[in-house]
């Protein structure tokens, strides 16, 4: 999937007024204004507050009160991470905009449209932790924009913290926190062993804070407008807004900013509405969960709202699968992709995911399978490996088996709704 950042944006509604509290917060209200220049950014949000000196602890506390959690898929308390790294000596801050997930575009769009918000957040995080440098890892498609934004800030002598831009690697696991550090240090986009934790020893053996770029953008706004403002949208347990990439069977695939807890159906409307009846939704990312569309439509898009469907907001992705497509075929495609994207360091991931992908492909093609074998492998691979990649793949397949029960029966009977014909698979076909 090679789309530029601009393709995913939606046109703003009429009369967009910038008020703290209203959405959108992160993305510029006016599409026509173009990528935010420093002047435009300052006009919209005001000057960046300082996070240095005595302000440091009070700011971290404010972030804690705001309840900001990571927007990269983890959902860890940002304040706790800041405090942990601030306790260390000579820390370094990494803004992670790698976005290794090919279906996700929110980080690219954010960096393309509001680069200064991300940079404000990175600089703030550096000041709050006592770091002298912030490294911004960006997707190659937005590299130029970030370079330009940093140059603007340098000319304006805006920051007391050094900013360095690095182009991220183009692999799925490259977005993982330790993989980002490994990429910066040695050019290898593969996760490294824990212990030690990154907050203790990461880049150049220094305490390292790795935050998703969206999280840092929210941080930049909390520092300006405060915790109560941040909490004015969202739910009490999961406050604030988030960016979600909505794609698949929607008329206007785009990155939308929602208050956490927005009903799923409303999010589809924000992306132009479904372009066909929707069979199922993939929520969270390629490592996320399939859910039945009808069951999910009225649910709030939040961890609490989706929990009993076995899903969650994940890294902010919603993929709509239309009725004319086959969820098993799509799962097989995604699973094979995930298997190929293994860093190849860990046995259960390298061999297990390939084996699981093979089995899911057999299911998708309607060939006879041993159902016990797939479940056995899913159980063996889950939770094992040097990072969460294999667990994410297992999660995807398990949710597919749960959600696409009807399709499984159809395939066993030799029929696939995705092609609307009997699958012409000769017996004994090998991969």
């Amino acid at each position, binding site marked *: 999937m090679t789309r530029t950042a601009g393709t995913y944006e939606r046109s703003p509604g009429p009369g967009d007024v910038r008020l703290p509290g209203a959405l959108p917060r992160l993305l510029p209200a006016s599409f026509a204004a173009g990528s935010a220049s420093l002047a435009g950014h300052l006009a919209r949000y005001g000057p960046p507050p300082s996070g240095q000196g005595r302000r440091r602890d009070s700011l971290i506390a404010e972030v804690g009160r705001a309840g900001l959690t990571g927007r990269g898929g983890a959902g860890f308390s940002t304040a706790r991470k800041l405090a942990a790294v601030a306790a260390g000596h000579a820390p370094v801050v990494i803004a992670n905009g790698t976005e290794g997930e090919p279906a996700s575009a929110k980080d690219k769009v954010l960096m393309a449209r509001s680069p200064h918000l991300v940079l404000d957040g990175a600089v703030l995080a550096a000041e709050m932790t006592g770091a002298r440098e912030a490294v911004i890892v960006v997707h190659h498609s937005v590299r130029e924009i970030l370079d330009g934004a940093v140059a603007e800030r340098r000319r304006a002598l805006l920051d007391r913290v050094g900013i360095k831009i690095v182009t991220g690697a183009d692999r799925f696991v490259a977005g993982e926190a330790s993989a980002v550090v490994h990429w910066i240090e040695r050019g*290898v986009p593969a996760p490294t062993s824990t212990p030690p934790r990154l907050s203790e020893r990461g880049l150049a053996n220094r305490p390292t804070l790795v935050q998703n770029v969206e999280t840092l953008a929210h941080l930049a706004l909390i520092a300006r407008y405060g915790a109560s403002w941040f909490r004015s949208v969202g739910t009490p347990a999961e406050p604030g807004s988030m960016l979600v990439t909505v794609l698949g069977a929607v008329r206007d695939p785009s990155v939308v900013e929602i208050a956490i807890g927005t009903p799923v159906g409303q999010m589809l409307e924000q992306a132009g509405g479904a372009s066909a009846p929707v069979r199922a939704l993939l929520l969270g990312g390629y490592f996320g969960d399939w859910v039945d569309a009808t069951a999910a439509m009225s649910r709030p898009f939040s961890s609490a709202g989706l929990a009993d469907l076995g899903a969650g907001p994940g890294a902010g992705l919603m993929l709509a699968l239309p009725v004319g497509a086959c969820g098993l075929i799509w799962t097989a495609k995604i699973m094979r992709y995930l298997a190929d994207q*293994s*860093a*190849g360091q860990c046995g259960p991931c390298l*061999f297990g995911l390939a084996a699981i992908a093979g089995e899911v492909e057999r299911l998708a093609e309607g060939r006879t399978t041993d159902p016990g074998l797939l479940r056995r492998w899913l159980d063996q691979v889950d939770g094992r490996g040097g990072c969460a990649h294999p667990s994410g793949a297992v999660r995807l397949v398990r949710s597919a088996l749960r959600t696409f029960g009807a399709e499984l029966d159809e395939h066993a009977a030799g029929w696939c709704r995705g092609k609307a014909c009997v699958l012409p698979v000769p017996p004994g076909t090998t991969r």
Partner: protein
Amino acid sequence: MNAAVAFGGSQAPWFVSRGSGLALLAAFSAAAVLGVAARTGSASRRWSRLAIGELHRTLALFCLAFLGLHVVTAVTDPYVTIGWAATVVPFASPYRTLAIGLGALAVDLGGAVLITSLVRRRLGYRAWRAVHWLAYLAWPAAFLHSVTAGNDMRIWWVALVVWGCVASVATAVIARLLFWQRGPDGPLPGRPERAVPKEKTLL
């Protein structure tokens, strides 16, 4: 040899030193062969990787015992002057300087391998692995020491044992080089290549 037996006790340390030296070379060679087998060989039911690994370690500790005996009997022998220092400081012995010096070299290199192995958890894998390669230098030093430090190569069965050691270690080294040539951190037998090459450790 008959004359030596006839002389009795005063020759005893000398015999023990030579005997333990031969045993040491044999144990060292066996340990080296097993070390290579642990890394390169496929496992069988009887010779599992655990069995080979543990045997390698046990033999290395046997080497330590034989070494102790070999060195103590040689240095305390009243008929030759070697001095304690010369056992670890190469080429410091007045008696057969080169030969004993090679032995001291073997002790130093082998000692480094042994000590790092005892503390390898604290040392970390990479440092331990780097030092372990010195074993490939320690063995030739031990071999050269054994053929130059005494005249026992005239005895047919001593020569047999020594050349047997050379042959087995040479075979192991060739096997190790072939394994390395297959690619650093080559895949274990029967497994496909990794998707992303694992960051290259020292060989």
